[in-house]
């Protein structure tokens, strides 16, 4: 069976060359929703009502869609964090902490007074710098001490979380409402694009950053080196590529994206323009970004579309909570399933595999029936081995 699969796979790949990544992402999305439906049914909700509310809430009207784009903004950027590092051959799961730090950096600029225009730019730049610095420490630990970036970035997420909580409650707190940070003044906010929605210029900042990443990683020498080091570290090394440099660079770029994500969120989200203690609005933006990156195939252009899809899930999730009474966290169940499905390479091959699995079971049953009528009663093992033998003969032919 393994043999047969090996034969059909290249042929299939040839016919679906351009389309298969898109199909696979779509299939993963469907699987995610399917598991969501099962979980909702188990908990006694009406899954169809929920799904209708979800999608009509996200894509049914202009307001909903604008909110979907607003929700997509930070996800797009944290997805880039993950994607750039995957392209360089590493798993940066620290977008979460880098985003916390970037957000608070953007808020901290309020401690000084700046003229409009410069104020916004100062916030965006500082958030990127702080995000990059927070990301650089794990990268340096990896380069100098060989510490797995998976462990170090997660530890940095937790350190960032506690540091952020400290800053929110002790340094940047709002004198009038101690449970949140100071609100960003009007001069530092990103202009809103549509009334009654949270869509701000931040969305275009994110798109612009994605395009810059695309240009840097796909159309410059540095980007070529990053991708080469990710595809085949040994070959890249023999080609004279300094893998330490590509590691540090990809983490810097990734940290910038995550910091920017936080800044775009806090500078463009009415009505508070601030962060609450406990960071409820920021939590999991970094992790959800990983799902976005995988569905977007770790490519900036793919990520733009996948971020809009996931932004829609999140925006529609609120409608789902409101109209179908299903808790918003359902969306993350769907996200997790999508990522699990995306872990399987060439997901569409699952169907032929399932088919051949069924055929195998049928064919393993049939010969046994045949031999039962014969002179010796055979046990399943021997019939299975006979099946193998006939298959081997087929291969030879």
């Amino acid at each position, binding site marked *: 069976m*393994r043999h047969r699969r090996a034969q059909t796979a290249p042929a299939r790949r040839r016919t679906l060359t351009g389309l298969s990544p898109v199909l696979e992402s779509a299939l993963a999305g469907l699987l995610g929703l399917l598991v969501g439906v099962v*979980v909702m049914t188990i*908990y006694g*909700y009406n899954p169809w009502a929920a799904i209708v509310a979800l999608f009509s809430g996200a894509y049914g009207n202009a307001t909903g869609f604008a909110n979907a784009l607003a929700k997509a903004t930070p996800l797009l950027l944290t997805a880039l964090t993950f994607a750039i590092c995957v392209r360089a051959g590493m*798993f940066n*799961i620290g977008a979460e902490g880098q985003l916390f730090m970037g957000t608070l950096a953007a808020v901290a600029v309020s401690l000084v007074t700046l003229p409009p225009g410069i104020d916004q730019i100062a916030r965006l730049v500082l958030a990127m710098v702080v995000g990059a610095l927070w990301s650089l420490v794990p990268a340096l*630990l990896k380069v100098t*001490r*060989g*510490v*797995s970036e*998976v*462990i*170090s970035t*997660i*530890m*940095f*997420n*937790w*350190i960032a979380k*506690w*540091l952020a*909580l*400290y800053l929110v*409650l*002790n340094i940047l707190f709002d004198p009038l409402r101690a449970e949140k940070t100071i609100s960003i003044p009007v001069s530092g906010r990103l202009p809103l694009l549509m009334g009654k929605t949270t869509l701000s210029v931040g969305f275009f900042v994110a798109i612009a950053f994605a395009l810059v990443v695309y240009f840097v990683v796909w159309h410059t020498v540095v980007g070529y080196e990053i991708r080469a080091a990710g595809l085949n570290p040994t070959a890249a090394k023999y080609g004279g590529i300094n893998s330490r440099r590509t590691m540090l660079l990809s983490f810097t770029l990734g940290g910038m994206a995550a910091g920017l994500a936080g800044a775009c969120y806090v500078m463009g989200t009415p009505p508070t323009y601030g962060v609450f203690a406990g960071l409820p609005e920021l939590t*999991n933006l970094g*992790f*959800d970004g*990983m*799902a976005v990156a*995988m569905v977007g195939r770790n490519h900036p252009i793919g990520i733009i579309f996948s971020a809009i899809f996931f932004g829609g899930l999140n925006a529609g999730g609120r409608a789902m909570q409101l109209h179908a009474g*299903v*808790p*918003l*966290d*359902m*969306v*993350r*169940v*769907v*996200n*997790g*399933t*999508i*990522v*699990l*499905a*995306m*872990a*399987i*390479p060439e997901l569409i091959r*699952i169907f032929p595999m399932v088919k051949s699995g069924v055929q195998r079971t049928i064919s393993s049953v049939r010969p046994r029936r045949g031999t039962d009528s014969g002179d010796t009663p055979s046990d399943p093992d021997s019939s299975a081995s006979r099946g193998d033998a006939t298959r081997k003969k087929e291969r030879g032919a």
Partner: protein
Amino acid sequence: MNLSYFWMVLILSLHAMVPLVLTAVGEIIGETAGLFNIGLEGILLMSAFTGVLGAQFGGPWVGLLTGMLTGGAISLIFSVITTRFKGSQMIAGIGINLFAIGFVAFGMAARGVSSLPQGKRLFAIQTPLGMGISPIVIVALVVPFIAYFFLKRTRAGLMLKAVGENPEAADVAGIDVLRVRLLATTFGGILAGLAGAYISVSWVGSMTKDISQGRGFIALATVVFSGLNPLLALVGGFIFGFFESLAVWIRNMPALKGIPTQFIAMAPYVVTLLVVAGVIGRVRFPKALGEPYKRE
């Protein structure tokens, strides 16, 4: 610093150690066979949740069993994806973590899970100095020794090692690489499931959305510290457990009252980083760790 104070610190550290040691030993068995599961955090979270549900239904032992089954089931899915389907272990692990965050938050929002009443919580063994010890602490102290014996002294342990170091050679020698990896990871998941259920059913006695608190990743760091030796995992788990209980006992020290609680809460993560950065280089991991096995 009297004896009962020292005793309190010891008991707190032992309790904080349990989930780290159990999870780390399970992961050592999985990593020896070549599978790297970063979904441990999600397994801890899910099994803590199902553990509470099980305990509410049929008492603490049912809760622990439910947790173990949950951990085993999730790991089985993980290992099917990463062995049969040759999926990426990293991405599958990330998927498990995301799924767990969503599933637990969803489940708690849908049906509020309150704290366990005293009768449904696992009993504690009373000690002469006052503080009770959970029976699972003893399990966590014994399991590393059994695992050590299994890995170093049995044929099955050697098979695991062969599969992790050189799957091609193991395959040629007639070992079913995929099945061995599947079994090893599933067993590791059962231990992680016990750890998760222990947190909610025995140690804390209630359930919160973020009850795992990064312990799955600290357990991964413990594995790095141990260099795949279960006995060193016990030592590492105790060190990390000690720093986790720091926050509790530092409250009683007047000299350190000035430090904000948030900085004390950071301590376990900082220490984990420092320890991992310090030991790297002297430990060696299986050659085929993290690589899906594809037969030529």
